[in-house]
């Protein structure tokens, strides 16, 4: 399970060690529609891997399958060498998997502090602690550190529903960086942001530790190519090609199916 098939032409070189995340023949159908079909992919540990493709290519469905929001109709998913195919989302999180959502999924009535506190508590013990404890303050301090990292310290005590869209996106990312993540999946983190906000987002992701495995779905090709070590192009639920950003930018098939679809 932990080693990719040698006949798989899309499998990347594995010089970085064991795969952080391995998908083997993963598929998901909704009735007659194959949203994701026979996808075999490696997110090698410590690698930044972008998944690109036109709308409806199955990128977000793929992320939902990895996180357990959806269960695959076929195939297997392994995280750090452990089979997680049928595990519930909250179990996968405890094994080091984090994600952000294309549309922010935040606790709207709560403060930034509470959102981050909960994200930290979610990967720690004490879910069913029924009274406030002294340990809460430790997590609260950690929440402030993360808020600083994603430039939200000014808004720390404000409820999420008064934040700007950009700030909500920052919080969305902050909540995925808590604890000790092994693999973080960013689902269109730059969607809807202004150019300035995009710049600081790219800086933020670039500054993340290189030990972190990153999966990235992004429509902005420049951002995707700049941030990633490896790029996979999907179309119609299938992997078309995987390669380095330079290979991908030069690939005529990519020009046709992806750039053509975007710009033409």
């Amino acid at each position: 399970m932990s080693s990719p098939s040698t006949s798989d032409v899309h499998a990347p070189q594995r010089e970085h060690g064991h795969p952080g995340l391995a998908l083997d023949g993963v598929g998901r159908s909704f009735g007659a529609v194959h949203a994701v079909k026979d996808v075999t992919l490696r997110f090698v540990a410590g690698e930044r891997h972008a998944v690109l493709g036109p709308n409806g290519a199955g990128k977000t469905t793929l992320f939902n399958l990895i996180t357990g929001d959806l269960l695959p109709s076929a195939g297997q998913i392994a995280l750090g060498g452990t089979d997680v195919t049928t595990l519930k989302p909250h179990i996968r999180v405890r094994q080091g998997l984090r994600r952000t959502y294309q549309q922010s999924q935040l606790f709207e009535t709560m403060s930034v502090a509470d959102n981050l506190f909960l994200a930290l508590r979610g990967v720690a013990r004490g879910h069913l602690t029924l009274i406030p404890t002294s340990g809460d303050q430790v997590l609260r301090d950690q929440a402030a550190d993360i808020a600083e990292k994603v430039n939200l310290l000014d808004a720390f005590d404000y409820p999420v529903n008064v934040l700007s869209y950009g700030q909500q996106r920052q919080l969305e990312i902050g909540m995925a960086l808590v604890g000790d993540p092994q693999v973080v999946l960013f689902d269109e983190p730059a969607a809807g942001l202004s150019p300035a906000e995009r710049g600081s987002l790219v800086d933020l992701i670039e500054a993340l530790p290189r030990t972190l495995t990153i999966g990235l779905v992004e429509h902005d090709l420049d951002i995707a190519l700049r941030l990633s070590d490896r790029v996979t192009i999907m179309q119609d639920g299938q992997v078309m090609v995987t390669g380095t950003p330079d290979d991908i930018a030069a690939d005529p098939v990519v020009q046709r199916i992806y750039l053509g679809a975007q710009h033409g």
Partner: protein
Amino acid sequence: MLVLALVLIPTIANDFFLVQIFAQAAILGLIALSLMLLGGWGGIVSLSQMSVAGLAGYTLAILGQSSMSQSLGSNSWLAAAAALAVALIVGFGIGLLVGRTRGIYTIMITLAIGVAVFYLANQNYAIFNGFTGYSGIAAPHVLGVDLRAPLPFYVLCVSLALMGWAGVAALGRSSFGKALIATRDCERRAAAIGFHVGRHRLVAHTIAGLLAGLGGILLVWFNGRISPGTIGVGPMIDILIIAVIGGMSRPSGAFLGAFVFVLLRTFAIDLVDPERFNTLIGLVFLVIVLTSRDGLLGLLGKLSKPERRKMSPRLKTLEREETS
């Protein structure tokens, strides 16, 4: 200040007010508090909280002492402890049943549970004594104090209500409470950051069962009796009305709602025919729901700080960008 007021009330209020208004409001408030916890924080609207209270009350009547021959006549405190245990188990059981449902389906299933409990009590004579139920149930003596007397009963009910209120308020600041609110705000994200949403809902149902059970025991001591009429659809809906009138965002709303409800029910008789009480409470309900998003708590909030708003961080950022 509230505690001080509650301590001073017996010096100015007569027995009727102590028991019929304050003690009754504390009791109904405790049951509504269980719905506030489930509905306000968990987003789970359960209509069967009165049934949980009723089953605790029946347990007390059956195991403890009453004027009915079916009662087993054991010690009142033991019977009360057993009643709480039953409420806990029933709360847990309802949580298991409705755990996977959401919104309107939860309401429908808990309504069905409530109606089923009502008919069970109404038609079963061996255990529930059918239509008649149990009467002649009195609060026990403790350390020589007769809890039946107005002042001790007032102290008992108000102390337990305060404890319930403080307990739920602390729960709201705890990791469990915050996570419960998180499952209401965005269930998907709550799971995506590592919370077992189903388990949180189940624990919420169980704690709510305990609160409702406490209210149920006091309700039986207050009325001196319990019958299917105590747990019919009318009383089930009353709890929902109390919770909504008071406001579901904070535990104090349940008691505020109960106080207003009890005042209206007690004194409406002077203003309108007793049969018109439902029309009156319906009108009050409409006015409050239409003018406030969070019942009386929302209205009080508006009155205490009209249009006072913190500057949003969005404006703060804009301001900083302009000055830099």
